[in-house]
């Protein structure tokens, strides 16, 4: 009896040791960490941005599932670190507005371009891709792509084939910004989509449902003209891209054979994944871990992005910001260098919506800088003092895409402004609620009495950087001129820019508009984001341009 008990005990001990050994073996087994010659990227997105041609998840989507897999008629020059990213030919080799009817544009297409499925890119493909978001009667019209596309090319109404390699695009009004807007319309393969459409089960008879299912299938097995083609897609987990050796631009034929993209929304998880070698590249590393990341041999890349983190001011009746001296004082009283220090250097100090040297910067007379004494003087002239501060409320969010670190940053600005007789209260609201409030404007009850709002924005495109904040036509609910900032003079400057079809002339007109906005101090300009990312030293030829985007195709990996 005792012997059998002892035997049982011994076998149990062996079993326990076996389990322990197994666990240890698992732990020290050869890690399948980032494989050589494969570039693994951890994105901040919570899901893989849509892969069907018009990505969601903001510009991170365009960065990772747009530009690598697709091309647009026009694109961004991402080869320079030291100059603003400019629009360059993409799938169109040239374009011109009609001399008599400025709502019509003719685009000459690049010959010899193939989609990943082998079909040819031509004028039919362009018309088809315009229809997918603008023509509700088209069989392939997809409502889910409308929002992220049509809002970024607000004046485009239709496309018409002239010949195989020429298309005519029509806008609702003369609009010189169209070539810039078109960077957002990626070309998906109509042939490949048709194949997916035909493969939908015959039992599905509703045409809209068939189209929806075809788009879902297309997203799982996409086909564009970009330098990388989709090779594997695990929903919500990973997207694998393979180099497309038949890419039309020899300079951008990928040197890296495979790219893996993983959604990883938590910044500490991303940082740990980089440090443990599971990924080669992380977007937005945890700020506290920057030193550790550098010490472990990774490289931090950052550059001023066309991004603005401001307080957008209200010009509605009763707003204290109607006094220009107050607006200027606020701009002179923010200690931006201190704020930069708070963010570990991860911001750029703004001089307006664009930095000096940008073609749209112009020559503003008001210099945005830190000068609290001048600010106090202006506030005293406006009738404020330490005993009688200017009391107002600013609507801010606790988090949100592009919002950087809204709470500590706003609190810093609040304290900074206090010395210049500003008593700022915050109305902290949920990020999506803030968007709704932003659309409704400063006069709407949704503003809850706030006279400024802190919604950051992209400044890549003149409409989104300038026009929607300065035109009377963009007053709510039409667009985002939340504060009702506008005048005849500004409208004329907007019209001058929008109807100037000479690129240099258009840029000069935009520079004048920007200078006017700075001189009128429509915002308190607080920061530009720098888009920090940490990348393994093995990854070479990384160029971080002054853009929201980055070109993976030109990178190499040791």
């Amino acid at each position, binding site marked *: 009896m005792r012997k059998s008990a002892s035997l049982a005990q011994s076998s149990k001990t062996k079993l326990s040791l076996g389990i322990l050994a197994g666990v240890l073996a698992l732990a020290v087994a050869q890690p*399948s960490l980032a494989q050589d010659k494969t570039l693994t990227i951890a994105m901040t997105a919570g899901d893989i941005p849509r892969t069907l041609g018009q990505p969601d998840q903001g510009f991170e989507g365009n960065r990772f599932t747009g530009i690598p897999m697709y091309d647009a008629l026009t694109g961004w020059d991402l080869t320079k670190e030291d100059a603003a990213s400019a629009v360059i030919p993409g799938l169109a080799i040239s374009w011109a507005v009609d001399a008599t009817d400025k709502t019509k544009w003719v685009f000459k297409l690049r010959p010899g371009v193939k989609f990943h499925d082998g079909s040819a890119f031509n004028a039919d493909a362009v018309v088809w891709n315009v229809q997918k978001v603008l023509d509700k009667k088209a069989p392939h019209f997809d409502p889910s792509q409308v929002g992220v596309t*049509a809002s970024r090319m607000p004046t485009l109404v239709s496309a018409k084939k002239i010949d195989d390699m020429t298309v005519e695009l029509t806008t609702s009004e003369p609009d010189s910004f169209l070539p810039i807007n078109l960077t957002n319309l990626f070309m998906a393969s109509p042939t490949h989509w048709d194949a997916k459409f035909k493969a939908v089960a015959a039992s599905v008879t509703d045409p809209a449902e068939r189209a929806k299912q075809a788009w*879902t299938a297309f997203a799982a097995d996409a086909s564009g003209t970009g330098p990388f083609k989709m090779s594997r897609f695990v929903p*919500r987990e990973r997207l694998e891209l393979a180099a497309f050796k038949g890419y039309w631009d020899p300079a951008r034929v990928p040197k890296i054979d495979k790219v893996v993209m993983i959604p990883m*929304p938590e910044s500490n*998880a991303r940082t740990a994944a980089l440090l443990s070698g599971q990924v080669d590249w992380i977007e937005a590393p945890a700020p506290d871990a920057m030193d550790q990341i550098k010490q472990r041999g990774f490289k931090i890349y950052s550059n001023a992005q066309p991004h603005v983190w401001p307080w957008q001011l209200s010009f509605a009746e009763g707003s204290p910001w109607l006094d220009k001296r107050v607006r200027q004082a606020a701009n002179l009283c923010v200690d931006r260098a201190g704020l930069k220090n708070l963010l570990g250097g991860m911001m750029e100090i703004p001089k307006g919506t664009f930095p000096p040297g940008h073609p749209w910067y112009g020559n503003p007379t008001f210099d945005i800088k830190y000068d609290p004494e001048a600010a106090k003087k202006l506030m005293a002239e406006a009738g404020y003092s330490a005993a009688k501060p200017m009391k107002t409320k600013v609507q801010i969010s606790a988090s949100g895409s592009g919002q950087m670190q809204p709470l500590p940053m706003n609190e810093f600005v609040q304290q900074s402004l206090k010395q210049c007789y500003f008593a700022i209260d915050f109305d902290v609201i949920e990020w999506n*609620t803030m968007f709704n409030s932003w659309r409704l404007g400063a006069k709407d009850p949704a503003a809850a009495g706030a006279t400024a709002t802190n919604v950051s924005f992209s400044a890549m495109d003149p409409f989104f950087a300038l026009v929607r904040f300065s035109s009377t036509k963009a007053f709510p609910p039409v667009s985002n001129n939340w504060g009702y900032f506008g005048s005849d003079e500004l409208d004329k400057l907007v019209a001058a820019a929008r109807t100037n079809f000479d690129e240099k002339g258009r840029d000069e007109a935009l520079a004048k508009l920007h200078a006017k906005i700075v001189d009128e101090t429509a915002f308190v300009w607080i920061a530009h984001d720098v888009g920090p990312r940490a990348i393994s030293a093995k990854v070479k030829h990384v160029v971080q341009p002054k853009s929201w985007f980055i070109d993976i195709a030109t990178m190499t990996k040791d």
Partner: protein
Amino acid sequence: MVNFIFQRVFQTIPIMLGVALVCFALVHLAPGDPLVSIMPPDASQDMQKQLMELYGFNKSYPEQFVRWAWRAVQGDLGNSIASGRPVATEVMRAVVNTFRLALVATFIGFIFGCLFGFVAGYFQNSWVDKAASLTSVLGVSVPHYWLGMVLVIIFSSLLMWLPHNGAGPGGSSDWHWDAEHLRHMILPALTMSVIPMGIISRTVRALVAEILSQEFIVGLKAKGLTNVGIFSHVVKNAAPTALAVMGLQLGYLLGGSILIETVFSWPGTGMLLNAAIFQRDLPLLQGTILVLATFFVVLNMIVDIIQTMLDPRIARG
């Protein structure tokens, strides 16, 4: 008995209707725009109105609810607004991943929970008991997302022994119960196991203490049984309750953990809920909550039926 089963199944219908209604109301009561995932923040009010019409969000809430509930009854939970993929497929894939993780976490929790519980109960008030009890209290009290991060820092970032991200080297779609995939599961499963471990341990400790105070233990001692022999009797007596607690814990873990799955990028229901919440993906959010709620309602129904089969007094009561 058949009548009872029919009655119990029938009772589930209003419960499910209530669940569907609450789930629909909750996601619609939350602030924000249901189309935020497919509409950029800078989209105009006109664009917002156009898309609300295209997606049917301009219809009244009762109309939207009836349409959604009717399709759900037929097994169609709609399509995710953000991804365009069918919600049912998305949820089922996540449920399978959560099930795998919960199974391993419960197993670890059960083994260690029983170990600590039996040892603590058997050697009551000794230092062994105090150490085991402290471990179980810590298991219940320590925030598991924090523990997860600590494990990631130690075993992944510093020692580089274990991966902490995802459900395998190629994602969950090619899951196998092999070493390469299990390595990905160790850290999230360990983190997830601390709560069941603590609860099982405390339950077993109390049980063992109670069993040891019973008269038959005195009888066994009087019979000359060794400590090992007595211990084996204690284990046999405590096992059913310990197993029942383990079953309950497995049920809880099947609901997924938003925090643990997010920290470890484990593609389960917790992470799916997290994504649906942040993207305001209402069909996905409604579908996931509904499936999880249905799971618990059905689970409770089955338990009720089994209990009644085992003990008919329950049905009579």
